[in-house]
């Protein structure tokens, strides 16, 4: 019985052809993949170095910023500017957001990455959360380090990038969203946990609220008035 059965010849040929086709396809894919991997690795490397540079520059600029602010403070003191006027200026600068502030408040972490989350957090959601914090009397608010001021717009760019003050706030690591608010801790906690947290949790998002002393950075954008003119008092 060392000869092949005739009836097997056709199926075996077909299987052999299919197998051969698969092998060549696989070889081709493998080649493409290794090429793609190489390109990707190169690109990642380039991006990493650009990012590192950019971050180093950021640190340097922040240091320079602090140094300049200190100098400015000293210059103002030296020329003997009216302290009352300076106090008024500080108050206005907290209001317009150009002054970094710290104080008691709450920190809210929202994670929309888990499998149970039905929807990712949307710009409208963020606007609503911030509105509720304002309603609770928050004196200063930030999301992922962006200070909320009057002119703050929260918009979607592309599919998933959220811009706040025209800056993308998406994070590549850690908790995706962190809201900080300064104000009466009891009120902030009470309002947020009753008005907003249940809704977010219902949609499967992870929410944690903690009382803590928070630091809210300054608004780094600019106000421009081209069309609006002050009305003489």
């Amino acid at each position: 019985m060392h000869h092949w059965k005739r009836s097997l010849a056709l199926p075996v040929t077909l299987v052999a052809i299919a197998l051969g086709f698969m092998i060549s396809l696989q070889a081709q894919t493998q080649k493409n993949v290794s090429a793609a991997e190489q390109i990707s690795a190169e690109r990642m490397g380039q991006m990493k170095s650009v990012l590192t540079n950019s971050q180093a520059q950021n640190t340097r600029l922040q240091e320079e910023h602090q140094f300049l602010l200190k100098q400015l403070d000293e210059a103002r003191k030296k020329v003997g500017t009216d302290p009352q006027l300076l106090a008024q200026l500080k108050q206005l600068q907290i209001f317009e957001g150009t002054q970094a502030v710290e104080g008691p408040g709450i920190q809210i972490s929202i994670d929309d990455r888990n499998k149970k989350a039905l929807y990712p957090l949307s710009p409208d959601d963020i606007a609503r959360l911030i509105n509720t914090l304002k309603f609770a009397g928050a004196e200063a608010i930030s999301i992922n380090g962006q200070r909320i001021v009057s002119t703050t717009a929260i918009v979607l760019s592309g599919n998933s990038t959220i811009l706040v003050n025209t800056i993308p706030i998406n994070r590549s690591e850690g908790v995706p969203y962190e809201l900080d608010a300064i104000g009466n801790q009891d009120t902030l906690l009470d309002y947020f946990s009753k008005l907003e947290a249940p809704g977010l949790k219902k949609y499967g998002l992870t929410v944690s609220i903690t009382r803590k002393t928070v630091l809210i950075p300054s608004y780094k954008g600019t106000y421009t008035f081209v069309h609006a003119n002050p009305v003489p008092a």
Partner: protein
Amino acid sequence: MKLQNKERSLLGLASILVGFLFVILLKAQGTVGSQLTRQETALPSLIQTEQENQQISEDNEKIQQELVKYAEGQNASALANQQLQEAQMNAGAVAVTGPAVRITLDDSKRVAIGQEDPNNFLIHEQYIREIFNALWNGGAEAIAVNGQRVTTNTEVFCAGSYIQINGTRQMPPYVIDAIGDTNNLSAALKFYGWDKLGDFQQQYGITRKLDVLPEVIIPAGKLRDYRYAEPVKEGT
């Protein structure tokens, strides 16, 4: 059917080969996927850092200019006064005038009948917030709604039969004025929510009106006292 030894070994070989191919295929697919995500997460943080750098640079330049003025020995109180005026303007503590768009929103005069959702006949708080957001995004310089200046702390919160804005009770119609480039502002309103309101206008009779006005006056906003927030000491 009984298989011969040779046939059996062939079948075994083929099975191993197919299994092997399958594993490689899965692996290849996996690496392609992970490469993609790594790159996708690195890019936003790069844009973020770059833009923040630009913001800080601009801010630093402003401070430097101010320091120069001090160094030049400019009149200190005049300088402080000038800064105070700028800060008041930025904070919205000054009434302003200029060309504007005016958006009027009002509940429908018709009542819901049958299966109609009564919510579609009313103006809701989020419509007002969405419009603010679109206007700021379009470069608005000052916004007010029903005479209430929109500032850093302005809330637009639905409290049942009325909407609370700046701690005051507001009822429809809601008239929103925004000073700025009226072409840009009108264009900025072309977003999803605005179109939806247009549909509601046709179907349920709510009011959604846009007017361009050569000049409006937007009142000053109220400042607030700070009981919890302290300025961060510089140099720390």
